[in-house]
């Protein structure tokens, strides 16, 4: 009992961010992220009122709409730490969570949505310069935001994790993880730490899968053609599964594969980790 209490007191507090499409389409990824973080000794909270990070609006060129979602998100996660001085943004619902800006973290299983919250939230409020307060909040907030694999390697420490899983996988670098967040080694380090798991690199792991959010419906034929290249690369490795830190890439790729009657496994890194823990 005492041990449990002390773990509770010294453990890291993580506020888990569940991207809206993961919530709806891939609850198993959300579950896996939750379980893995808990297993690694984190105290995991899931703020109920969290919502879309705003990326669809932002990437389609609607910054004002994206700002509204950014403010909502920061309010939900920061809770009582959202400055009272930003009054006009506090009307309505009461803050429920208490977020410590020095020690708590926001972690999410999506390079793309995390890039939005970590890199583009400050950008959104920086450009206008009219709202310095929101800019300051966004900067402070962004420093606490981590993508799932980076958080595990850089904050928790890889030594806390050990798993075993007989599986061969290829890793697809999502563009937002790789180029916006500069995450390249972290997911590979995690995969390589799983005993009996074999990582077979793609010939072109860093080429975009073709999803690109709004691009996938504005130029669907190009998007699919790019996806087919990525799939051919994956089939060529003969690995059991294609793993990534972004389900959006995998959603696009698996949709093309299924359309062509091909059944292959596409999995988020957290799902592979949970499986390897065998809990």
């Amino acid at each position, binding site marked *: 009992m005492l041990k449990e209490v002390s773990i509770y007191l010294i453990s890291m507090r993580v506020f888990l961010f*569940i991207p809206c499409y993961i919530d*709806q*389409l891939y*609850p198993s990824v*959300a579950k896996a992220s939750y379980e893995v973080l808990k297993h690694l000794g984190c105290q995991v909270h899931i703020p109920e009122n969290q919502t879309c990070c705003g990326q669809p609006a932002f990437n389609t*060129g609607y910054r004002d709409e994206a700002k509204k979602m950014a403010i909502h998100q920061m309010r939900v996660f920061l809770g009582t730490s959202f400055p009272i001085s930003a009054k006009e943004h506090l009307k309505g619902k009461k803050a429920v969570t208490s977020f410590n800006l020095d020690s708590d973290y926001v972690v999410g299983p999506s390079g793309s949505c995390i890039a939005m919250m970590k890199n583009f939230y400050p950008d959104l409020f920086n450009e206008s310069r009219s709202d310095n307060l929101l800019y300051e909040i966004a900067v402070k907030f962004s420093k606490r935001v981590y993508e799932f694999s980076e958080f595990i390697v850089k904050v928790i420490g890889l030594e806390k994790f050990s798993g075993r899983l007989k599986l061969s996988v290829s890793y697809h670098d999502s563009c937002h993880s790789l180029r916006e967040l500069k995450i390249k080694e972290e997911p590979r380090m995690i995969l390589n730490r799983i005993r009996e798991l074999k990582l077979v690199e793609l010939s072109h792991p860093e080429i975009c899968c073709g999803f690109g959010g709004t691009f996938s419906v504005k130029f*669907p*034929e190009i998007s699919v053609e790019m996806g087919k290249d990525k799939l051919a690369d994956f089939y060529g490795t003969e690995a059991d599964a294609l793993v990534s830190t972004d389900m959006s890439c995998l959603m696009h790729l698996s*949709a093309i594969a299924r359309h062509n009657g091909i059944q292959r496994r596409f999995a988020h890194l957290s799902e592979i980790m949970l499986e390897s823990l065998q809990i």
Partner: protein
Amino acid sequence: MRPNSPGIKTLYKKELSNHQLRENLSKATLQSVQKRNKSFEELDFEYLRNQARQIKLDTLSQLNEYLAQFEDNATKNGCKVFYASTAFNANQYILNVAKSTSSKLIVKSKSMVTEEIELVDFLKKNGIEAVETDLGEYIVQLAGEKPSHITTPAIHKSRYEISNLFHDKLGTENNPNPEFLTLKARQILREQFLKADIGVSGANFLIAETGDVVVVENEGNARLSTSSPRVHIVVTGIEKILPRFSDLRIFLRLLGRSSTGQKLTSYTSILRSPRTKEELDGPDELHIVILDNGRTNLLGTEYQEILHCIRCGACLNVCPVYRKIGGHAYGSVYPGPIGSLVTPLYSDMEKARDLAFASTLCGNCTEVCPVGINIHHHLLTLRNDINKRHKHFVEKFLINQFTMVSLRPKLLSFLGGTARMLSRLQLLNFFLKQWTKERSVPNFPPQSFKKYNRE
């Protein structure tokens, strides 16, 4: 750039469906990328590009002063400098030079600016023939096409296609051996070099402190074009200026590697003046036409750094979209990621409606840009700017609805449940037409995570 020419939305499908084209592009661009990466292994790319960026920032902050300094020095060296604010002014000036020197034939080395002002067509209408002498440009001209790449204009053609083209137009035997084809072109072009009255070239750099014009190339055709005919006309953009001669040590290292993976191109010509009394070769007259044509629109705006571009073509080679559709699909002189910025921002903002969106924002362009232009983030900014000018009502409505729903997480969950129901009834496909042509609808699990978590 003609304002009403067809844009990417009307052109890309045809190009994409050309299997041969996709194969040519994929092979050529992947090879270029590989060579580029290898050539930078021995250098600190980040250091060099930061140096280049600083020099460009300084140059653009005092562009007028540097241009004036260049003009002063070039004039002292015996060159004639002409500022053209528009494509028409530039063309008119060149035509006047041709008329005053009673010239009939022009040999041209590679220059994207002459494509931008459509010089060859303009001269043709005025009875003057201009022959492209860069092999790639020659091929494209022979085929009656436009360049599909900034530095490798015939990248869309395989050697077999070129062999067929030569057979049709020049009556050569059908031989796809690159050496054979090059020799044939060389033979024909030699005669043109000797006959030509004027040589037209571009410029990679203009050096303010010395008045020098720097031209890099691999085939020697630019050196011939600039030294053999009686008159040499340089056509270039105002952004090509560099303050000091010593800046070349940064830029030459970056340019060759970024475009072709070469440490240095085979020829680097530094041209200072028309032929002096002591010299055997060189033109009697050297004209330098410096073009604005919309470039100064960018000064002082958040897009200013786009003027850093040294036209290396690296962003085209790494672009997965360019790799699928090629340069012609963009419907503009400058294709690829940098073209999607330059085209709307220089002259034709309307084109941003599609060009700004013809990117997955993968950021590979930004990663390789040797002068540190944040290309894909500028595309994002451009999306926002064009939406403000042009209300796309359906899209705006959808985004507004989505925002409204997202700000009410309970409603979002409820609608998620509705979509779940529709997907079970196979009704979702109706709403996702653009998605489902070649992709299945994602399988909805029985319940969302939030719902699961509450229970």
